[in-house]
């Protein structure tokens, strides 16, 4: 083997090793760090286990938003028009959060089946519906 070739071999081996390590680490990061996304029907069917965090998508039920006056505590009900999940959240709600609007919340279920959210996301688009709900919703749409 010429020195030139040996050098090239080292280079290729180095690259292969680097890329494999990177892939392995990426895959393990992936396995540890993906979050699950459920809709109320799946939650009702027991898809969420224990106090594991997940994302919950649904429409905010009209008339369900309640506040403790003067505090950041707010509660509302997310629905996919088949099942409902009560949600509590402490903090500032996003601009597009409204009753009848689709939102995605991140958090976990407590012992009473209440979803304790640490983050609530609403969408740019008022026509937006969370994934898996779009097909099931009644056609009526309020607002503008």
């Amino acid at each position, binding site marked *: 083997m010429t020195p*030139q070739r040996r*050098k*090239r071999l*080292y*280079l290729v081996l180095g*690259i292969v090793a*680097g*890329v494999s390590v*990177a892939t392995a*680490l*990426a895959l393990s*990061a*992936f396995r*540890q*760090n*993906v*979050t*699950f*996304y*459920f809709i109320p029907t*799946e939650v009702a069917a027991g*898809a969420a286990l224990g106090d594991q965090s997940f*994302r919950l998508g649904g429409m905010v039920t009209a008339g369900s938003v309640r*506040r403790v*006056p*003067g*505090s*950041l505590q707010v509660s509302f009900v997310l629905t996919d028009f088949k099942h409902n999940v009560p949600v509590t959240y*402490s*903090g*500032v*709600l*996003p*601009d*597009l959060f409204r009753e009848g609007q689709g939102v995605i919340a991140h958090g976990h279920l407590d012992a009473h089946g209440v979803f304790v959210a640490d983050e609530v*996301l609403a*969408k*740019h*688009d*008022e026509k937006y519906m*969370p*994934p*898996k709900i779009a097909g099931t919703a009644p056609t009526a749409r309020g*607002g*503008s």
Partner: protein
Amino acid sequence: MLPELGHFALVLALVLAALQAFFGIVGPALGRDRWAAATTSAVAGQFVMVATAVGILVYAFVNFDFSVLYVAENSNSALPLMYRIAALWGAHEGSLLLWIFLLAVWTLAVAIASRNLPERFAARVLGVLGVLSFGFLLFTLATSDPFRRLIPAAADGRDLNPLLQDPGLAVHPPVLYTGYVGLAVAFSFACAAMLEGRMDPDWARWTRPWTTAAWAFLTCGIALGSWWSYYTLGWGGYWEWDPVENASFMPWLVATALIHSLAVTEKRGLFKSWTLLLAILAFSLSLLGTFLVRSGVLVSVHSFAADPSRGRFILAFLGLVIGGALTLYAWRAPLLKSNAGFDLLSRESFLLFNNILLVVAAATVLGGTLAPLIADTFGQSSLSVGPPYFRPTFLLAVIPLLLLLSVGVHANWKRGHLEAAVRPLLVTLVVAGLLGAAVVFGAYGGRHALAIIGFGIGSWIILSSLLDPVDRLRRHLSLSRAVLGMTLAHIGLAVAVIALTGVESYTSESDIALAAGASAQVGGYDFKLIGTQPIEGANYNAIRATVIVTRDGQPITTLYPESRTFWVQQQTRKVAGIYNRHGTDLFIALGDDLGAGRWSFRAQIRPLITLLWLGPLFMALGGALALSDRRYRMARAAARAAPPGARGEAY
């Protein structure tokens, strides 16, 4: 009448794009130089037609022509002039038209600048660009006509999405799109080289300025989007690893790899097929980004057009363009062999590692972005990938990249002798580490000691990049703009690294509930609510809060965060109150009326965030400086000086 003319102009543009593609690709293939020469006329004609269409749509917006569906849906009689113009790219149809217009502008620029290039080669570049124009024009006319009439005309429009009624958003899409579309030029140069079956250092010299320009625009566009999301949408978040953010970031990573790989191809005639592959990949990723945004297959804050027929069209187009280019690559790339060797510690090696790491970074982002889609296909529709995945995997590729950068700028072409650089590199490394430690322990009391790594790496890149230029200045040697540009861009990257470290480590954030007269402390600053009052804007009503910020009893500033409710769509948008103090942002956004006289607020103290906007600006300016280098003007002059007959033969 005018909108119909606009539609007609687009149809003519489609025909001209077809001619441009035909003359540009078939002409040189059959050796018919007169056909090839006709390409330029088609380019000019197409540009005029597309510009006419854009002009007509802008005219319709400015003059409130609510008989045009797109105008009626995205404008309103109360909308200020600036946003009536920006409304052009406020939704799907218009932003597609903007895309086509920018492609026409780039194509025209290439046509003008390439008068000095070998004729056949230039025709081929323009021909490939014609194929792309044709595809996008067909897409517009078939699925997304912006000139569709609304009969009877609406009495008033439904208004532009309030989130888009903001100066930052008025400029973010055009700049980002200019970058996206600019990658089409690099793509076309690559395809033209493969059609020619040859590629030499001249090719790289012609392609480099275009790629650098597109990259600089992309850099600015991404930074502008991040800035906009910081002060409106994201409640102080500047990067969420949202699919659409990723869609702009992946082409940027690959384009960054491409400008480095082009350097090797130009200087040493190496990495030829790799450079071609990167050019194809960069543009493919920008098309993929368009597909992800337009089709609504991925859930994102940005996706405004969830229409499956559009998604299918773009997917088919994507398949054709990428598939076509890769087929061409498989067929022609083996012709482009390079035989020069290089040492392990030569500059070529470092640039090779740069490329590998950048592509690995892009691949991890791509994997995370597409994973929910792939899982969905296999019936696992419950997967959601967010920052916990992206952050560690991305850092994994980027930290070695940053470390290699400091060393790599001192490596020589071809030969691996780094001995002379070892001492200064070690000295700068120690100085940088001490600087990092000084900042962490001096300014932040030793919290988050890992931040030393970020600050240290950033400072090391700056110091190491400055070694050579300063040395040359001291010896009164000249510095080329290319080297200055590269140095500035590397410093910009380092500045962004330092900013990210500071912002991620030392941000204080809190949601607070305040009644008038009450105050809360966040990150050492006191936010005191004086009161709220209703105000009226051009096309919205707002609640404005008055908040006094003090530190240790000393008044710092008064902030006026607003919550604007726009008349037409009754949609609310926040405008945060931000005060910049020595590079640290004091940020407060107004939330909701909580009852009992109290309001919710989100208050943040974000140190070093100013540097986060300066970093990308330096990078883009560095790019601009590099592409104004004498060498590229010389390259053009040299091509001009070559005898006309020889030019046609050589290419």
